[in-house]
């Protein structure tokens, strides 16, 4: 399997996908970004043993308002599954509603980041998320996640 670390972006809004890619590029984050546009696709991808020859993502950026299966449910299912439960997952969303924050942390999200409207601020937020989860943060040992090699 390919061991090249990549980012999984679960986001249904193509504008946000484009802006996020642009923000990564501006921050010189060269990791591949795999984009899935609804919760069902995301779960199918993550729970698929083959995964088109890929390993598990290094970090998941998860929108909350997703078609078919909501971001919170995706999070819950990831955390309930032995193979995926340790993947660092960041909620990246427009909402800063209290109930969303609470639910996210209850379900074991690693970070909750609100997408700022101001693109410069957005770029800065993406920079920090990328820097932290892709560079600073030590990922859990591969054996524990049952698939990363």
């Amino acid at each position: 399997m390919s061991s090249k670390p990549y980012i999984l972006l679960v986001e249904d809004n193509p504008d946000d996908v484009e802006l996020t890619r642009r923000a990564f590029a501006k921050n010189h984050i060269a990791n591949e970004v795999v984009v899935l546009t609804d919760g069902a696709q995301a779960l199918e991808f993550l729970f698929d043993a083959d995964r088109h020859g890929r390993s598990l993502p290094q970090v998941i950026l998860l929108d909350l308002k997703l078609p078919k299966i909501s971001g919170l449910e995706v999070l819950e299912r990831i955390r309930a599954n032995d193979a995926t439960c340790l993947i660092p997952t960041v909620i990246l969303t427009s909402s800063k509603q209290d109930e969303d924050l609470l639910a996210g942390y209850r379900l074991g999200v690693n970070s909750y980041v609100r997408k700022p409207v101001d693109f410069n601020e957005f770029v800065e937020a993406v920079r920090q998320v990328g820097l932290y989860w892709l560079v600073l943060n030590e990922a859990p040992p591969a054996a524990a996640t049952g698939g990363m090699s």
Partner: protein
Amino acid sequence: MADDSVLRPDLALVLERITDGFFALDAQWRISYMNAEARKLLHAREDVLGVYWLDAFPKARGRLFEREYTRAMRDQRPVQFVEYSQTANRWFEVKAYPSLDGLSVYFRDVTARIEAQQEVERTARRQQALIDFGRTALSGGHLDALLSDAVDLVREALDASVIEVYDYEPQNACFALRYAAGWATGAAMEREFPALEHLRHAVESGEPFVSSDIRIESRARSLAPLAALGVLSCICVPIGSAREPLGAIVAFHPKPRTVSAVDVRFVEALAQTIAEAARTSESNRRIAQVLESIRDAFVAVGRDERITYVNARMAAFWGGEPVDFIGRPLAHFTEKFEDGGYGAARFRESLREDRPLTFEMPFRERWFEVRLYPYSDGVAAYVRDITRRKNEQQRMIALNVELERRVAERTKQLELANKELESFSYSVSHDLRAPLRAIDGFSQALVEDYAEALGDGGRGYLDRVRKAAQRMADLIDALLGLAKVARASIEMRPLDVTEIVREVAADLHDGDPCRDVEIEIETGMRASGEPGLVHAVFANLMGNAWKFTRLAERPKIRVGRTPEGEFFVADNGAGFDMAYSNKLFGAFQRLHAADDYEGTGIGLATVARIVHRHGGSVRADGAVGSGATFYFTLPAAKERVGLDEQQTVHPAG
């Protein structure tokens, strides 16, 4: 025969000595011997011997003496009897022994014994009569019937020829003849009542007045003329006491005589019973008057469950006169109640447990309240028509049910509205910001990637696009905040308001360190409220003051309380025109151009909503160029209770 008539001397001696009377008759009923005692008792003549006995004692003819002696001789068997001798005016006990040649008769005077016996019997009869009379009086019969009984008793006991009963009328101290018996027809009518001195004596002293001969009665001259009507002695007994005289009873006798103490006491006893009956009758009459006058229906039932009294109102309800119902069984009426025996059972319960009871029952499409009061002889029931009250009650109950239904319905609607508002807020929060981000992001991308093609003008427009997008994002956040205040449930807590104000002041200074604004804070301010929301109130008001004093020469903000207890935030900034003060607290209302002072126009709306949700009020005071003051109230500090339930349950309201 002559030989037979002479007794042997020794025998004669014996017969003379015995204390009994003795005489002997020969076969021809002639007296052959009579001892001294017999001669004395019978007042016999000296020459009675040899005289036919009925010639010697003619008054014995036809009486027991003759009948019994004849029977003794006929049957030749001894006889014994007691008879009153009119010859001697004494009672004799007689024993007569017949033989073929005559009859021996022994007798003795038993007058004392017989009279004593008769006295005992008469006393017993009178006592029985008094007891019967008292019982009649107690049974509550009519007073006139009772008086009639009394008159018969007096006449019989005293052997009186005339009886009168008078009423005494205290208003004019006059007597009125109520009852008279024994006068020759019309005699009573001719008499003059005011001059009845004998009655006055008795009534005024409270003691019987006795005159043994009215012809020579010096105490009551009014009596003497009555002698012409055939009466010569009288007894006059008062009814009632000297203090409260009710009348008198008078008995006349055709002969002069002294009435015995026993007789006087007998009449007195009757008079006392009559007085009690009269008083009872009077008090019953008064009670009846009361019971007739009360507006409730009244019925009394005896222990035998028969009706003993109904007032006119009750009788009218049952369709009749009171007399139609007295004595009839209660069941006769209760069985019409159609209450499954409930009413009758309550009557019995009250009687059995000797305890007052109240119950309500429907009857003939009306409602009645029945109050039962047990007493020694039965149960008294007051019945009141409560149809109006009951209808009112039921109307109230129906109204309440309807009201509760409406409240429940409204609550449900509010809950639904609240849910919709929540999902609306959620949707706004998630969906409205994404396009703004795209507008801003791609504007920036254009500036970065196509700067030359755009030129200065193009870049300037894109800058405006981006500012507008940012501003809209702020508005959305402010709106969401306002919605949050509406939905939040408020838990009252004691607050150190001065401390909150200090925190807000510190934040303002920290956020804008370039400005020098004097903030004066009153110490010791306290209140009750939700800490976060009260903080937001001061943050908004003081933030506004901070903002609008930007152009002031020496900017100053004062926070404190009025003497009435209102909190205020005052500044010496731009102020506002009072003409628009009613627009201050509406959402998105601004009194200043956006270019002059930044802001979303949501702040004061949020303040007003928070204050209202605390049960307080808010107002503003100001003038253009001379600053603004905002006043608001919060619950006092000692009140630790939460807001009422409705506000907590229906935050959207």
